[in-house]
Protein backbone atom coordinates (compact mmCIF):
# COMPACT_ATOMS: atom_id res chain seq x y z
CA UNK A 1 0.00 0.00 0.00
CA UNK A 2 1.62 3.22 -1.11
CA UNK A 3 1.65 6.25 1.05
CA UNK A 4 -0.51 9.21 0.09
CA UNK A 5 -1.03 12.46 1.97
CA UNK A 6 -4.53 13.05 3.27
CA UNK A 7 -6.75 14.70 0.63
CA UNK A 8 -7.17 17.95 2.60
CA UNK A 9 -3.54 18.84 1.92
CA UNK A 10 -3.90 18.52 -1.83
CA UNK A 11 -3.86 21.86 -3.60
CA UNK A 12 -4.02 20.71 -7.17
CA UNK A 13 -1.27 21.27 -9.70
CA UNK A 14 1.68 23.49 -8.76
CA UNK A 15 1.21 27.23 -9.52
CA UNK A 16 3.95 27.14 -12.15
CA UNK A 17 2.21 24.32 -13.97
CA UNK A 18 -1.09 26.22 -13.88
CA UNK A 19 0.65 29.37 -15.06
CA UNK A 20 2.20 27.55 -18.01
CA UNK A 21 -1.16 26.05 -18.93
CA UNK A 22 -3.01 29.38 -18.87
CA UNK A 23 -0.20 31.26 -20.59
CA UNK A 24 -0.15 28.80 -23.45
CA UNK A 25 -3.93 29.05 -23.70
CA UNK A 26 -3.71 32.86 -23.80
CA UNK A 27 -0.93 32.83 -26.38
CA UNK A 28 -2.93 30.43 -28.51
CA UNK A 29 -5.95 32.74 -28.34
CA UNK A 30 -3.86 35.80 -29.20
CA UNK A 31 -2.29 34.15 -32.23
CA UNK A 32 -5.66 32.88 -33.42
CA UNK A 33 -7.15 36.34 -33.02
CA UNK A 34 -4.32 38.42 -34.45
CA UNK A 35 -3.41 36.21 -37.39
CA UNK A 36 -6.51 34.26 -38.32
CA UNK A 37 -9.50 36.00 -36.67
CA UNK A 38 -10.83 32.65 -35.47
CA UNK A 39 -11.94 33.86 -32.05
CA UNK A 40 -14.88 36.02 -33.13
CA UNK A 41 -17.51 33.49 -32.03
CA UNK A 42 -15.86 33.14 -28.61
CA UNK A 43 -15.75 36.92 -28.35
CA UNK A 44 -19.46 37.14 -29.16
CA UNK A 45 -20.29 34.72 -26.37
CA UNK A 46 -18.10 36.44 -23.79
CA UNK A 47 -19.36 39.84 -24.89
CA UNK A 48 -22.93 38.80 -24.08
CA UNK A 49 -21.78 38.05 -20.52
CA UNK A 50 -20.15 41.48 -20.20
CA UNK A 51 -22.96 43.41 -21.90
CA UNK A 52 -25.05 44.15 -18.76
CA UNK A 53 -21.93 45.50 -17.06
CA UNK A 54 -21.21 47.71 -20.07
CA UNK A 55 -24.72 49.13 -20.07
CA UNK A 56 -24.46 49.76 -16.34
CA UNK A 57 -21.17 51.56 -16.87
CA UNK A 58 -22.84 53.86 -19.39
CA UNK A 59 -25.56 54.87 -16.95
CA UNK A 60 -23.64 57.75 -15.30
CA UNK A 61 -22.93 59.26 -18.72
CA UNK A 62 -26.57 59.09 -19.73
CA UNK A 63 -27.55 60.71 -16.45
CA UNK A 64 -25.01 63.49 -16.91
CA UNK A 65 -26.22 64.12 -20.46
CA UNK A 66 -29.83 64.19 -19.29
CA UNK A 67 -28.98 66.70 -16.58
CA UNK A 68 -27.08 68.88 -19.05
CA UNK A 69 -30.05 68.86 -21.43
CA UNK A 70 -32.40 69.78 -18.61
CA UNK A 71 -30.39 72.81 -17.65
CA UNK A 72 -29.95 74.13 -21.18
CA UNK A 73 -31.40 77.58 -20.90
CA UNK A 74 -34.21 78.97 -23.00
CA UNK A 75 -31.94 81.69 -24.32
CA UNK A 76 -29.50 79.18 -25.73
CA UNK A 77 -32.29 77.28 -27.43
CA UNK A 78 -33.78 80.47 -28.90
CA UNK A 79 -30.41 81.54 -30.21
CA UNK A 80 -29.80 78.12 -31.71
CA UNK A 81 -33.24 78.16 -33.31
CA UNK A 82 -32.55 81.48 -35.01
CA UNK A 83 -29.21 80.24 -36.26
CA UNK A 84 -30.79 77.09 -37.66
CA UNK A 85 -33.51 79.10 -39.41
CA UNK A 86 -31.01 81.33 -41.17
CA UNK A 87 -28.94 78.31 -42.12
CA UNK A 88 -32.01 76.59 -43.53
CA UNK A 89 -32.78 79.63 -45.66
CA UNK A 90 -29.23 79.68 -46.90
CA UNK A 91 -29.29 76.01 -47.81
CA UNK A 92 -32.78 76.13 -49.37
CA UNK A 93 -31.33 77.63 -52.51
CA UNK A 94 -28.70 74.93 -52.69
CA UNK A 95 -31.30 72.24 -52.15
CA UNK A 96 -33.45 73.52 -55.00
CA UNK A 97 -30.56 73.51 -57.40
CA UNK A 98 -29.50 70.11 -56.10
CA UNK A 99 -32.75 68.55 -57.30
CA UNK A 100 -32.29 69.79 -60.82
CA UNK A 101 -28.62 68.85 -60.77
CA UNK A 102 -29.44 65.35 -59.61
CA UNK A 103 -31.96 64.88 -62.41
CA UNK A 104 -29.45 66.18 -64.89
CA UNK A 105 -26.76 63.92 -63.51
CA UNK A 106 -29.00 60.86 -63.79
CA UNK A 107 -29.75 61.72 -67.37
CA UNK A 108 -26.10 62.26 -68.23
CA UNK A 109 -25.10 59.01 -66.59
CA UNK A 110 -27.75 57.16 -68.53
CA UNK A 111 -26.41 58.70 -71.66
CA UNK A 112 -22.92 57.55 -70.75
CA UNK A 113 -24.32 54.10 -69.96
CA UNK A 114 -22.75 54.38 -66.56
CA UNK A 115 -23.99 52.69 -63.48
CA UNK A 116 -26.67 54.69 -61.82
CA UNK A 117 -25.73 55.80 -58.37
CA UNK A 118 -28.51 54.78 -56.07
CA UNK A 119 -28.93 56.41 -52.70
CA UNK A 120 -27.80 54.00 -50.03
CA UNK A 121 -29.74 52.82 -47.07
CA UNK A 122 -28.43 54.45 -43.94
CA UNK A 123 -28.84 53.55 -40.30
CA UNK A 124 -28.78 56.23 -37.64
CA UNK A 125 -26.58 55.39 -34.66
CA UNK A 126 -25.13 57.05 -31.62
CA UNK A 127 -21.58 56.83 -30.32
CA UNK A 128 -21.63 55.26 -26.86
CA UNK A 129 -18.00 55.49 -25.85
CA UNK A 130 -14.42 55.36 -27.04
CA UNK A 131 -12.86 51.94 -26.75
CA UNK A 132 -10.59 51.71 -23.72
CA UNK A 133 -7.96 49.79 -25.64
CA UNK A 134 -5.07 52.29 -25.86
CA UNK A 135 -3.45 50.53 -28.80
CA UNK A 136 -6.20 51.12 -31.31
CA UNK A 137 -8.63 53.92 -32.12
CA UNK A 138 -12.15 52.66 -32.00
CA UNK A 139 -15.56 53.80 -30.83
CA UNK A 140 -18.58 51.74 -29.90
CA UNK A 141 -22.00 52.61 -31.34
CA UNK A 142 -25.42 51.58 -30.09
CA UNK A 143 -26.61 49.53 -33.08
CA UNK A 144 -25.65 45.95 -33.80
CA UNK A 145 -26.53 42.90 -35.87
CA UNK A 146 -30.10 43.04 -34.50
CA UNK A 147 -30.50 46.31 -36.39
CA UNK A 148 -28.97 44.85 -39.53
CA UNK A 149 -25.44 46.18 -39.26
CA UNK A 150 -22.64 44.24 -40.91
CA UNK A 151 -18.91 44.41 -40.73
CA UNK A 152 -17.38 46.55 -43.46
CA UNK A 153 -20.06 49.25 -43.49
CA UNK A 154 -18.89 52.83 -43.66
CA UNK A 155 -19.67 55.27 -40.85
CA UNK A 156 -20.00 58.97 -41.66
CA UNK A 157 -21.23 62.17 -40.09
CA UNK A 158 -22.34 65.42 -41.71
CA UNK A 159 -18.75 66.44 -42.55
CA UNK A 160 -17.00 63.31 -43.67
CA UNK A 161 -15.92 59.76 -43.02
CA UNK A 162 -15.49 58.66 -39.41
CA UNK A 163 -14.56 55.04 -39.92
CA UNK A 164 -15.73 51.56 -40.67
CA UNK A 165 -17.69 48.95 -38.73
CA UNK A 166 -15.15 46.25 -37.93
CA UNK A 167 -16.92 44.11 -35.37
CA UNK A 168 -20.63 43.56 -34.82
CA UNK A 169 -22.19 42.36 -31.59
CA UNK A 170 -25.93 41.71 -31.22
CA UNK A 171 -26.68 45.16 -29.80
CA UNK A 172 -23.41 47.08 -30.22
CA UNK A 173 -20.85 47.58 -32.94
CA UNK A 174 -17.25 48.55 -32.95
CA UNK A 175 -16.17 51.24 -35.40
CA UNK A 176 -12.51 51.54 -36.28
CA UNK A 177 -11.70 55.21 -36.86
CA UNK A 178 -9.89 56.36 -39.97
CA UNK A 179 -7.00 57.39 -37.69
CA UNK A 180 -6.37 53.80 -36.58
CA UNK A 181 -3.06 52.47 -37.81
CA UNK A 182 -4.60 49.35 -39.28
CA UNK A 183 -7.30 51.21 -41.18
CA UNK A 184 -6.90 52.10 -44.86
CA UNK A 185 -9.24 54.07 -47.14
CA UNK A 186 -8.96 54.51 -50.90
CA UNK A 187 -8.95 58.24 -51.50
CA UNK A 188 -8.44 60.82 -54.16
CA UNK A 189 -7.10 64.36 -54.12
CA UNK A 190 -9.84 66.80 -55.09
CA UNK A 191 -7.50 69.22 -56.87
CA UNK A 192 -6.04 66.82 -59.43
CA UNK A 193 -7.75 63.46 -58.97
CA UNK A 194 -4.57 61.72 -57.83
CA UNK A 195 -5.51 58.44 -56.16
CA UNK A 196 -3.91 57.24 -52.97
CA UNK A 197 -4.57 55.07 -49.96
CA UNK A 198 -4.90 56.87 -46.63
CA UNK A 199 -3.70 55.03 -43.53
CA UNK A 200 -3.98 55.97 -39.89
CA UNK A 201 -0.91 57.82 -38.62
CA UNK A 202 1.35 57.06 -35.72
CA UNK A 203 0.31 60.20 -33.80
CA UNK A 204 -3.23 60.46 -32.46
CA UNK A 205 -5.67 62.13 -34.84
CA UNK A 206 -3.36 62.05 -37.86
CA UNK A 207 -3.39 60.11 -41.08
CA UNK A 208 -0.70 59.47 -43.63
CA UNK A 209 -0.32 58.65 -47.30
CA UNK A 210 2.11 55.80 -47.69
CA UNK A 211 3.98 54.84 -50.83
CA UNK A 212 3.59 58.18 -52.60
CA UNK A 213 6.56 58.91 -54.87
CA UNK A 214 8.60 61.97 -53.90
CA UNK A 215 7.61 63.77 -57.09
CA UNK A 216 3.87 63.16 -56.62
CA UNK A 217 1.75 66.26 -57.11
CA UNK A 218 0.62 66.88 -53.54
CA UNK A 219 0.45 70.25 -51.82
CA UNK A 220 -0.23 71.42 -48.33
CA UNK A 221 -3.95 71.92 -47.80
CA UNK A 222 -5.00 69.39 -50.42
CA UNK A 223 -8.31 67.78 -49.53
CA UNK A 224 -8.64 64.02 -49.82
CA UNK A 225 -12.04 62.51 -50.55
CA UNK A 226 -13.06 58.90 -50.90
CA UNK A 227 -12.58 57.62 -54.42
CA UNK A 228 -15.41 55.06 -54.23
CA UNK A 229 -13.31 52.41 -55.95
CA UNK A 230 -13.79 49.77 -53.30
CA UNK A 231 -17.60 49.94 -53.18
CA UNK A 232 -17.51 50.33 -49.39
CA UNK A 233 -17.32 54.08 -49.18
CA UNK A 234 -19.48 56.22 -51.42
CA UNK A 235 -17.61 58.56 -53.70
CA UNK A 236 -16.62 62.07 -52.69
CA UNK A 237 -16.78 62.04 -48.90
CA UNK A 238 -14.07 64.17 -47.29
CA UNK A 239 -11.54 62.11 -45.37
CA UNK A 240 -8.53 64.26 -44.57
CA UNK A 241 -6.51 67.35 -45.35
CA UNK A 242 -2.79 67.33 -46.09
CA UNK A 243 -0.84 69.34 -43.50
CA UNK A 244 2.78 68.37 -43.95
CA UNK A 245 4.87 66.92 -46.75
CA UNK A 246 8.45 65.80 -46.26
CA UNK A 247 10.33 65.03 -49.45
CA UNK A 248 13.70 63.47 -48.82
CA UNK A 249 15.78 62.34 -51.78
CA UNK A 250 17.24 59.56 -49.64
CA UNK A 251 13.87 57.80 -49.52
CA UNK A 252 11.83 56.53 -52.41
CA UNK A 253 8.58 57.77 -50.90
CA UNK A 254 7.46 61.13 -49.62
CA UNK A 255 6.15 61.39 -46.07
CA UNK A 256 2.71 62.98 -46.26
CA UNK A 257 0.88 63.74 -43.01
CA UNK A 258 -2.81 64.63 -42.92
CA UNK A 259 -5.40 65.49 -40.32
CA UNK A 260 -8.83 63.90 -40.31
CA UNK A 261 -11.72 66.04 -41.52
CA UNK A 262 -13.97 64.85 -38.76
CA UNK A 263 -13.75 62.75 -35.67
CA UNK A 264 -15.84 61.08 -33.01
CA UNK A 265 -15.57 64.16 -30.77
CA UNK A 266 -17.66 66.39 -33.00
CA UNK A 267 -21.04 64.74 -32.67
CA UNK A 268 -22.52 61.75 -30.95
CA UNK A 269 -24.80 60.98 -33.89
CA UNK A 270 -23.46 59.14 -36.93
CA UNK A 271 -24.82 57.41 -40.02
CA UNK A 272 -23.93 53.85 -40.92
CA UNK A 273 -24.16 53.35 -44.67
CA UNK A 274 -25.38 50.06 -46.05
CA UNK A 275 -22.82 47.96 -47.79
CA UNK A 276 -23.28 48.51 -51.50
CA UNK A 277 -21.18 45.80 -53.02
CA UNK A 278 -21.79 45.36 -56.69
CA UNK A 279 -20.39 42.22 -58.21
CA UNK A 280 -17.52 43.22 -60.49
CA UNK A 281 -17.81 42.01 -64.09
CA UNK A 282 -16.12 38.67 -64.70
CA UNK A 283 -12.48 39.04 -65.70
CA UNK A 284 -11.65 38.54 -69.38
CA UNK A 285 -9.36 35.60 -68.58
CA UNK A 286 -12.43 33.48 -67.77
CA UNK A 287 -12.36 31.99 -71.25
CA UNK A 288 -8.69 31.04 -70.92
CA UNK A 289 -9.30 29.34 -67.61
CA UNK A 290 -12.07 27.12 -68.98
CA UNK A 291 -9.87 24.23 -70.17
CA UNK A 292 -8.11 24.10 -66.83
CA UNK A 293 -10.31 21.41 -65.21
CA UNK A 294 -9.54 19.15 -68.14
CA UNK A 295 -5.84 19.66 -67.55
CA UNK A 296 -6.39 18.90 -63.89
CA UNK A 297 -8.14 15.65 -64.70
CA UNK A 298 -5.19 14.53 -66.76
CA UNK A 299 -2.92 14.68 -63.72
CA UNK A 300 -2.27 11.14 -62.53
CA UNK A 301 -3.93 10.38 -59.24
CA UNK A 302 -1.88 9.29 -56.31
CA UNK A 303 -2.41 5.70 -55.28
Amino acid at each position, binding site marked *: MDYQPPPFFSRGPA*PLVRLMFFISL*AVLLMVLDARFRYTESLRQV*VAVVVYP*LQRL*ALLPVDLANGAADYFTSLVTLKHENEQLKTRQLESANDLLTLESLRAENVQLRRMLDAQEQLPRKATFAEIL*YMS*RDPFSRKVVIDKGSQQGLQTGQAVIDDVGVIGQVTRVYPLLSEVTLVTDREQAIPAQIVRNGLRAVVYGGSDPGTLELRYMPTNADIQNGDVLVTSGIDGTYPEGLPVARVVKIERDAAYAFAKVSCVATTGPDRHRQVLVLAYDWKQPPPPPQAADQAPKPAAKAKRPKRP
Partner: protein
Amino acid sequence: MAFDPRFQGIPRPVNVGFMALTAAAAMLFNMLPWRDVIGLPDLLALVIAFWCVHEPRKMGIGFAWALGLLMDAGNGALMGQHAFAYAILAFGAIALHRRILWFSPWAQAAHVLILLVASQLLMLLVRMAAGGAYPGLGYFIGPVIAAALWPVATYVLLLPQRRPRHSDEPRSI
Protein backbone atom coordinates in the same frame (compact mmCIF):
# COMPACT_ATOMS: atom_id res chain seq x y z
CA MET B 1 -3.04 38.88 9.29
CA ALA B 2 -2.02 42.05 7.58
CA PHE B 3 0.26 44.56 9.23
CA ASP B 4 -2.27 46.50 11.22
CA PRO B 5 -1.43 47.54 14.76
CA ARG B 6 -5.03 48.43 15.57
CA PHE B 7 -6.56 45.13 14.70
CA GLN B 8 -5.84 42.47 17.32
CA GLY B 9 -8.56 39.90 16.78
CA ILE B 10 -8.74 37.03 14.35
CA PRO B 11 -10.43 38.22 11.15
CA ARG B 12 -13.54 36.47 9.94
CA PRO B 13 -13.23 34.17 6.93
CA VAL B 14 -13.60 35.89 3.61
CA ASN B 15 -16.91 35.79 1.84
CA VAL B 16 -16.52 34.51 -1.72
CA GLY B 17 -19.52 36.54 -2.80
CA PHE B 18 -17.79 39.68 -1.59
CA MET B 19 -14.69 38.76 -3.61
CA ALA B 20 -16.82 38.36 -6.73
CA LEU B 21 -18.59 41.64 -6.00
CA THR B 22 -15.31 43.56 -5.71
CA ALA B 23 -14.06 42.03 -8.95
CA ALA B 24 -17.30 43.02 -10.69
CA ALA B 25 -17.10 46.55 -9.27
CA ALA B 26 -13.50 46.90 -10.44
CA MET B 27 -14.47 45.70 -13.89
CA LEU B 28 -17.34 48.18 -13.94
CA PHE B 29 -14.87 50.95 -13.14
CA ASN B 30 -12.65 49.78 -15.99
CA MET B 31 -15.58 49.82 -18.41
CA LEU B 32 -16.76 53.32 -17.59
CA PRO B 33 -16.59 55.39 -20.78
CA TRP B 34 -13.31 57.12 -20.02
CA ARG B 35 -12.42 59.12 -23.05
CA ASP B 36 -8.69 59.55 -23.44
CA VAL B 37 -7.82 59.84 -19.77
CA ILE B 38 -4.11 59.26 -19.37
CA GLY B 39 -2.93 57.24 -16.40
CA LEU B 40 -6.17 55.46 -15.67
CA PRO B 41 -5.48 52.76 -13.06
CA ASP B 42 -6.52 49.23 -13.91
CA LEU B 43 -8.50 48.50 -10.76
CA LEU B 44 -9.31 44.96 -11.82
CA ALA B 45 -5.59 44.14 -11.90
CA LEU B 46 -5.26 45.64 -8.42
CA VAL B 47 -8.19 43.61 -7.06
CA ILE B 48 -6.81 40.42 -8.61
CA ALA B 49 -3.39 41.07 -7.07
CA PHE B 50 -5.03 41.84 -3.72
CA TRP B 51 -7.06 38.65 -3.52
CA CYS B 52 -4.15 36.56 -4.78
CA VAL B 53 -2.04 37.93 -1.93
CA HIS B 54 -4.71 37.58 0.76
CA GLU B 55 -6.65 34.54 -0.40
CA PRO B 56 -4.37 32.54 -2.70
CA ARG B 57 -6.51 29.42 -2.27
CA LYS B 58 -9.71 31.11 -3.39
CA MET B 59 -8.40 33.46 -6.08
CA GLY B 60 -6.03 31.79 -8.47
CA ILE B 61 -4.42 31.99 -11.86
CA GLY B 62 -7.45 30.43 -13.54
CA PHE B 63 -9.89 33.01 -12.24
CA ALA B 64 -7.51 35.83 -13.14
CA TRP B 65 -7.26 34.41 -16.64
CA ALA B 66 -11.06 34.23 -17.00
CA LEU B 67 -11.50 37.80 -15.75
CA GLY B 68 -8.88 38.90 -18.27
CA LEU B 69 -10.85 37.23 -21.03
CA LEU B 70 -13.96 39.19 -19.98
CA MET B 71 -11.93 42.40 -20.13
CA ASP B 72 -10.71 41.51 -23.63
CA ALA B 73 -14.21 40.93 -24.93
CA GLY B 74 -15.57 44.05 -23.24
CA ASN B 75 -12.77 46.31 -24.42
CA GLY B 76 -12.44 45.01 -27.95
CA ALA B 77 -8.78 44.32 -27.23
CA LEU B 78 -6.80 41.45 -28.68
CA MET B 79 -8.42 38.25 -27.42
CA GLY B 80 -6.24 36.79 -24.67
CA GLN B 81 -4.18 39.92 -24.06
CA HIS B 82 -5.55 40.75 -20.62
CA ALA B 83 -5.92 37.05 -19.81
CA PHE B 84 -2.20 36.59 -20.44
CA ALA B 85 -1.18 39.60 -18.34
CA TYR B 86 -3.54 38.83 -15.46
CA ALA B 87 -2.46 35.19 -15.28
CA ILE B 88 1.16 36.26 -14.87
CA LEU B 89 0.14 38.96 -12.39
CA ALA B 90 -1.75 36.37 -10.32
CA PHE B 91 1.22 34.03 -10.39
CA GLY B 92 3.55 36.80 -9.19
CA ALA B 93 1.14 37.77 -6.41
CA ILE B 94 0.75 34.16 -5.27
CA ALA B 95 4.51 33.69 -5.31
CA LEU B 96 4.86 36.78 -3.08
CA HIS B 97 1.94 36.17 -0.74
CA ARG B 98 3.89 34.62 2.12
CA ARG B 99 6.35 37.48 2.57
CA ILE B 100 4.55 40.58 1.30
CA LEU B 101 2.16 40.84 4.28
CA TRP B 102 5.02 41.29 6.76
CA PHE B 103 5.81 44.67 5.26
CA SER B 104 4.15 48.00 5.93
CA PRO B 105 1.36 48.98 3.50
CA TRP B 106 3.60 51.28 1.46
CA ALA B 107 6.32 48.63 1.14
CA GLN B 108 3.61 46.23 0.03
CA ALA B 109 2.54 48.81 -2.55
CA ALA B 110 6.11 48.88 -3.88
CA HIS B 111 6.02 45.12 -4.36
CA VAL B 112 2.69 45.38 -6.14
CA LEU B 113 3.95 48.23 -8.31
CA ILE B 114 6.55 45.93 -9.83
CA LEU B 115 3.90 43.29 -10.55
CA LEU B 116 1.49 45.78 -12.10
CA VAL B 117 4.15 47.45 -14.26
CA ALA B 118 5.35 44.04 -15.42
CA SER B 119 1.85 42.98 -16.46
CA GLN B 120 1.28 46.31 -18.22
CA LEU B 121 4.63 45.94 -20.00
CA LEU B 122 3.67 42.45 -21.16
CA MET B 123 0.46 43.80 -22.67
CA LEU B 124 2.42 46.54 -24.42
CA LEU B 125 4.87 44.02 -25.88
CA VAL B 126 2.07 41.73 -27.04
CA ARG B 127 0.18 44.55 -28.73
CA MET B 128 3.26 46.04 -30.36
CA ALA B 129 4.06 42.58 -31.74
CA ALA B 130 0.50 42.37 -33.09
CA GLY B 131 0.90 45.72 -34.87
CA GLY B 132 -0.76 48.15 -32.47
CA ALA B 133 0.10 51.82 -32.10
CA TYR B 134 2.46 52.90 -29.30
CA PRO B 135 0.31 54.63 -26.67
CA GLY B 136 3.09 56.75 -25.15
CA LEU B 137 4.72 56.77 -21.73
CA GLY B 138 1.46 57.89 -20.11
CA TYR B 139 0.49 54.24 -20.38
CA PHE B 140 2.72 53.49 -17.40
CA ILE B 141 1.21 56.12 -15.11
CA GLY B 142 -1.80 53.86 -14.60
CA PRO B 143 0.06 51.10 -12.72
CA VAL B 144 1.76 53.70 -10.49
CA ILE B 145 -1.59 55.14 -9.47
CA ALA B 146 -3.03 51.65 -9.01
CA ALA B 147 -0.11 50.69 -6.73
CA ALA B 148 -0.62 53.90 -4.75
CA LEU B 149 -4.19 52.74 -4.16
CA TRP B 150 -2.97 49.51 -2.54
CA PRO B 151 -3.21 50.78 1.08
CA VAL B 152 -6.74 52.02 0.35
CA ALA B 153 -7.63 48.65 -1.16
CA THR B 154 -6.19 46.90 1.91
CA TYR B 155 -8.44 48.96 4.16
CA VAL B 156 -11.61 48.74 2.09
CA LEU B 157 -11.45 45.13 0.95
CA LEU B 158 -10.71 43.78 4.44
CA LEU B 159 -13.51 45.72 6.15
CA PRO B 160 -16.08 42.89 6.05
CA GLN B 161 -13.59 40.51 7.64
CA ARG B 162 -12.97 42.85 10.55
CA ARG B 163 -16.55 43.03 11.70
CA PRO B 164 -17.10 41.66 15.21
CA ARG B 165 -18.61 38.20 15.37
CA HIS B 166 -21.64 39.30 17.36
CA SER B 167 -23.28 42.64 17.27
CA ASP B 168 -23.18 43.02 21.07
CA GLU B 169 -19.48 42.27 21.25
CA PRO B 170 -17.26 45.36 21.55
CA ARG B 171 -15.74 46.30 18.23
CA SER B 172 -12.08 45.48 18.08
CA ILE B 173 -11.25 47.82 15.20
